[in-house]
């Protein structure tokens, strides 16, 4: 427990340790701690940025979906409209076709009727001729009266 030169020795050792610590220990470790702090701060900032960007992307996606839905609706309504048009058109064309068929059928019927009339007329002539011949007997010259009858027939 005597005070002796150990006091000085200890002081010198202490100074040397302080110097060593100040020069070779503290600065590099402190530097690393500061670097890490900065790294963490950067990382957090990047995460924040990423989050923000994700939000934007989500908003954009929502918008795209919305637009797509609108377009789809439009296409559907167009298609419906077009379908109605086609149905209307086919109705019209069917009506036209029907009319046409009707007309041609009528014409044919008329033609047929005319033809039957003609035939009938010609037969009426010959029947009338035959009837007249029977009524008049044999005096009637077949040949002379045929022209007359023809004229008669054409007038019917």
């Amino acid at each position, binding site marked *: 427990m005597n*005070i002796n030169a150990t006091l000085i020795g200890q002081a010198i050792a202490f100074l040397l340790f302080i110097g060593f610590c100040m020069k070779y220990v503290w600065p590099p470790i402190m530097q690393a701690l500061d670097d890490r702090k900065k790294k963490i701060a950067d990382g957090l900032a990047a995460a924040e940025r990423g989050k923000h960007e994700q939000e934007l992307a989500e908003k954009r996606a929502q918008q795209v979906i919305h637009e797509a839905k609108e377009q789809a609706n439009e296409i559907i309504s167009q298609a419906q409209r077009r379908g109605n048009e086609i149905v209307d058109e086919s109705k019209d064309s069917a009506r036209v076709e029907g009319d046409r068929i009707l007309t041609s059928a009528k014409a044919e019927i008329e033609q047929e009727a005319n033809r039957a009339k003609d035939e009938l007329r010609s037969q009426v002539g010959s029947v009338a001729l035959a009837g007249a011949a029977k009524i008049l007997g044999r005096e009637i010259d077949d040949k002379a009266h045929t022209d007359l009858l023809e004229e008669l027939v054409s007038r019917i």
Partner: protein
Amino acid sequence: MASETTITTSGYIKHHLQNLTFGEKQIESTTGTWSPTGEWGFASSAQEATQMGFWSINVDTMLLSILLGALMMWFFRGVAKTVSADVPTPVQNFAEMIIEFINNTVRGSFSGGKNELVAPLALTIFVWVFLMNLMDLIPVDLLPMAVAQGASALFGADPHHVYFKVVPSTDPNATMGMALVVFGLMLYYSFKIKGTAGFLAELSFEPFGKWALPINLVLETVTLLAKPFSLGLRLFGNMYAGEMVFILIATMYSASLVLGSLAGLLQIGWAIFHILIIMLQAFIFMVLTIVYIDMAHQHH
């Protein structure tokens, strides 16, 4: 330490409290006066160590404190060499934990602006003092016995007269040596920051104004000198007392079986409590150093 027949409790305690002192050998004459022999060597008794005077050295204190300091610097230098800002290794993590703790303490207590010295100083003090105090937890007889037996085997020394004090901080030389360095730093920063005139004015004109200059000077000088003394002696006193309790507990082992088992319990209890003390004393030494150096930076 001595053989069963010659050992006494007080002799045992005294033996444990004596440093291994190297200096000029002294010899006691029959009339009780001491005279130097001109030879240099280790003191073989407490009286001889005292008679060696100032120019002798406590080899055990120096050896252990430098060893512990080197261990500390080796550890931190190893970390500092491989330190990286990426994911830290467990060792780096441990060192960083200590350094963050010191850094926060320094930031909390030191307001003197940018100073490259204070934080490394605080780290050195905290870890070094802690390690020196930690030696207290080694069983009191283990190292002294080993050194005594080793010295007698290697150099033929009488093991009864080989002293070895394991805890450097129970040597006032060690604690006062550190306190002196702190005192020197306080004076350095006082002169540097306040200037010679400013520092002397602070000593002369406070606290009672310029008309009470002599009283101020006496008061302030005492205040100034009390700082290193209280710093060094607080650590020394606490560690010395703690070591003394360990030694006293150790004397109980040879008393009887009952006392011996009681001593075992006491030693465990005191050791657990002592963990707190060694930590706290290291911390107090560090914080007071920071505060003193901070005060040297303050303008009044």
